Structures are given as C-alpha cells and as structure tokens.
C-alpha cells in the first residue's frame, strides 16, 4: 500500500512537471474555453436573448477545456515516451506500463478540472449564477461520473494513438468532434437525430446531462441513475478495450520489438 502510494505520488509529480503543466495546457484549459464561451455569449446577445444560458456557454466552456486538455496530454503520453526513448525502459521496469499510464491519465484529468472550476467561479462570481436551486450531491456524483469517463477515454486514447505516426493528425478528428457531439456548449436535442445517436457512445454526454440537470435543480431520480449507469457502463467498455490495446503495445515492444520503428 505504502509502495503504491509512493509510486502514485511520484508519477503524478513527474507527469505534472514534464507533461501536464505547460503553456499549451494554459491555452487549452483557459484561452480556448474563454474564446468559445465568449462567442456563445455574443451569439446569444446578437440573437436578442436577454441573458445567455450560463450552464452551456460558461460551464460548457469549462468542460471543453477539461476535454481538450485531456486529449492533448493523454494522446501524447506514450508517443512522447517513444520519441524520448523511455517507452522500452518503462516496459522493462517492474511497474507495468498500464499502471503508469493509469496514474498519468488520472493526473491529466485531475489537473484539467481547473478549467471547470474556473468556469464555475466565473459563472458564480462574475455572472452571479445562483447555485441555490442546485442539487449539490447529484452534481458532485455527476462530476465524478464524468471524470471516470474522461479517465477511461484518456487511457484508451493514449494506447490507441501509439499505433501510427498519423495519430498526430487523428487528434484533429477527436477533440472537436467529441465536443460537437457530446453537447458541451448546447443541449444534445438541437443536433440532428443521427448525430444524437452517435453521441450516445460517449460516456461524457450522459454525465454532462445529469450534471446540468443537477445544477438546474432537478432532483435525483431514476432517469439520473440510469444515465449514470449508461455512462459508467460505456466507460468500462472503453477501459476494457484499452486493456486489449495495452496488451498489443506490450507485445509490440517485448515480442516483436518494433514499436519504436512504427
């Protein structure tokens, strides 16, 4: 237990200093969400609305910051090891790559919550968004469900992205499409039906729905529980897929020794 805790703290420390905390993260956590939120607010004003929907424009921006930060840190984790020549060394060490990657992704997800916290603070302190009606317990549980979903997706992407050097470009087809389909900045209901159907495969979508309902004051009910269940279920499937990918990564390094040459 003590050894695991030590590993956890050391890995988080290294991950924060080497990968997670950099200027690009600053862009993804704060600048991009601020711009997208501002566009949402100005569009709302231009359309003649008295006040913008803060849950979608401001807090949605925070969710987007979390997601973008995760995509650009986790997808580059194993690839950075490959580039820096540390991947084989990690695989050769007694601690499994899976365990290390799990801690790294946890660090990325945890650090990314700063974007959401900042968005909440902006909504409450600057725009006087009231949390009086919010179901805080449901909101916290929904957030945990979202974080778990993000963690599973992060571990999956880290392994998936190691397969090809084209992965740098694949990221371009992951960050925005998920934000687009999971309804970070607007309700899913405004999407065409076929897009809504695709969005149901993303665990964040379900967690986001319950988070928003909790913030807007909807009491915990069976539908909320069902959405949490769906989100956790999909997250677990994604995690299982990442285990398969993780095994393949190991085989490529240990059995065929070809990973660095891909």
């Amino acid at each position, binding site marked *: 237990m003590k050894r695991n805790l030590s590993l956890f703290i050391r890995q988080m420390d290294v991950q924060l200093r080497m990968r997670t905390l950099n200027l690009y993260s600053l862009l993804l956590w704060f600048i991009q969400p601020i*711009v997208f939120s501002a566009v949402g607010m100005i569009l709302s004003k231009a*359309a*003649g609305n008295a006040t913008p929907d803060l849950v979608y424009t401001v807090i949605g921006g925070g969710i987007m910051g979390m997601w973008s930060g995760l995509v650009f840190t986790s997808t580059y984790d194993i690839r950075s090891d490959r580039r820096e020549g540390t991947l084989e060394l990690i695989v050769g060490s007694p601690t499994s790559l899976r365990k290390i990657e799990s801690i790294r992704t946890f660090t990325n997800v945890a650090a990314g919550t700063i974007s959401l916290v900042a968005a909440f603070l902006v909504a409450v302190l600057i725009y006087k968004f009231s949390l009086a009606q919010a179901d805080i317990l449901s909101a916290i549980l929904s957030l945990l469900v979202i974080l778990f979903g993000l963690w599973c997706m992060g571990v999956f992407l880290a392994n998936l992205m190691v397969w090809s050097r084209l992965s740098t470009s694949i990221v371009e087809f992951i960050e925005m499409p998920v934000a687009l389909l999971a309804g970070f900045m607007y309700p899913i209901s*405004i999407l065409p039906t076929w897009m809504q159907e695709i969005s149901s495969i993303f665990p964040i979508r379900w967690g986001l729905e319950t988070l928003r309902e909790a913030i807007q004051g909807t009491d915990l009910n069976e539908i909320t529980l069902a959405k949490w269940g769906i989100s956790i279920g999909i997250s677990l499937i994604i995690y299982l897929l990442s285990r398969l990918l993780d095994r393949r990564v190991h085989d490529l390094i240990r059995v065929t020794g070809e990973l660095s040459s891909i």
Partner: protein
Amino acid sequence: MRTVIRIVRLYFIQAWFSYRSLFAWSTPFNYFASKFGFPFFSMLLFMFMGKFAGFTDPTFIIIGNILLLPSLNGVSGISQTVGGERQFGALSYLLASPAPRAPLFLGRAFFHILDGLITLLVALPVAVFLLGMDISSINLGPVLVCVITLCITTNGIGFIMGTVTLLSRDGWMITSSLSIAFYMLIGVNFPVEHLPSFLQRVAYGLPMTRGIMAARLALSGARWNVIAPLIGGEIVVGLIYIIIGYASFRIVERASMRSGLLDTI
C-alpha cells in the same frame, strides 16, 4: 540583371522548400487533417452554438469560418515555418548566410498564399454543395479579389509571429492563442459590431476584419464601389503588418548576429 535573377531564384527556392515542409506533413492525410480537421469541426460547433442561441440560418458562420481558413496558412503556417528552422537546427546557418533577407524571409509566404487560396477555393464549393450555402447572387470578380487579398494580408501577422517564435521558444503558444482569438475578434461568427467597443477597435486594427466583411458583401452580390473601401483598408492594414513583420525580423536578426547568440537569442 544577374542580381535580380539571383534574388528571384532565391525567392522561389525558399518558397519551394518552405512548401515541401509545410506543416511538416508527410502524407496527404496529415495535410488534410491539419488543414480541415479543427476548422471544419469547430465551424460545425459554432453552427450549433448559433442554432442554440436562436439563429436559424447558419450562413454567416459558415462563410466566416471558410474565409478564416487562409489564416491557418498565413499565421500558423509561416510562424511554424520560421519556428521549424530553429527546431531542426537550420536557423543558425540561415542567419549566418550572406543571402539577401527579403527573398529569404518573404519567400516563406509564397506557397502559403497559394495553399490558402486553393483551400478557400475548395472549401467554398464544398460549403455550397454539402451545407447548402446560397450563392445565387454572388459577384464572382469581387469575391476573387477579396479572397486573394485575404490570403496575402494574413501573412503580416504570420511574419510578426515568426519573429516572436525566434525570440521565444513558446512563441507558438502566442500564435495558437491568436488563431483561436480570431474566432471571436474578426467577424467570423458574428458581426464585429456585436463586440464591446474596445474589442471593436482591436478588430479593426487586425488584418482580415475588413477583408472578411468585403468578401461577405461580394458573396451577397455587392459591386466594386461597395467593397473597394473595405478592400483598400484591408490592403493598408495587411501591408503595415507585413512591413512590421519584416522590420522586426531584421532587428532580431541583427541583434542575434551582434551578440553571436544566433538562434539562442
């Protein structure tokens, strides 16, 4: 005469090498993804944000995002090209070479202008066929002039950002932030008049703001006399940025030579 030929040759050699390392793409997929991935999906995101806000017609957002495409070349591309020289260790040799600076520096823009133009000319018909954009009243001549002007004027900021990239290893972060800020500042997703007054002043001080306004008017059938003042303003603003970009590059270059720091400045 020989000097002129040498300068022209140098300009096109620089342009060709710059093009071959454009965005450091190694396959057509990489090229396609870096050119259209983020811009296309962010355009869709803004379209749905607009729909959620209450706009039923997404044409304004579609046109704005398409007209923003050359900035990817002009701003990110050029600054990335200059930054790439440093990353790959070629900058010191470039700075120490006796080659004339104007073709060396400006040559980096040539294929970015062409590439930006081609991107726009591909994206506009795609928007018409896939997204149902209405161009029934288009005035083609002025549209072409607007598009070519936009592709050239965006390079000014690219040159300035290239110099910033020479000064700071985190220059690309400023470039990326600026590229994101364009979605809000230059009338891409909503008219500039909806910005707070101080941001409107910033917007009119940036290249592309007037060019995008002019292109929108031309797409809806406006004639030369309507768009001419906007295009004139766009050219003036763009030229100012190009001159500042070139001058700042020369200043930084001289400082690096004087101190002997070269690319570690």
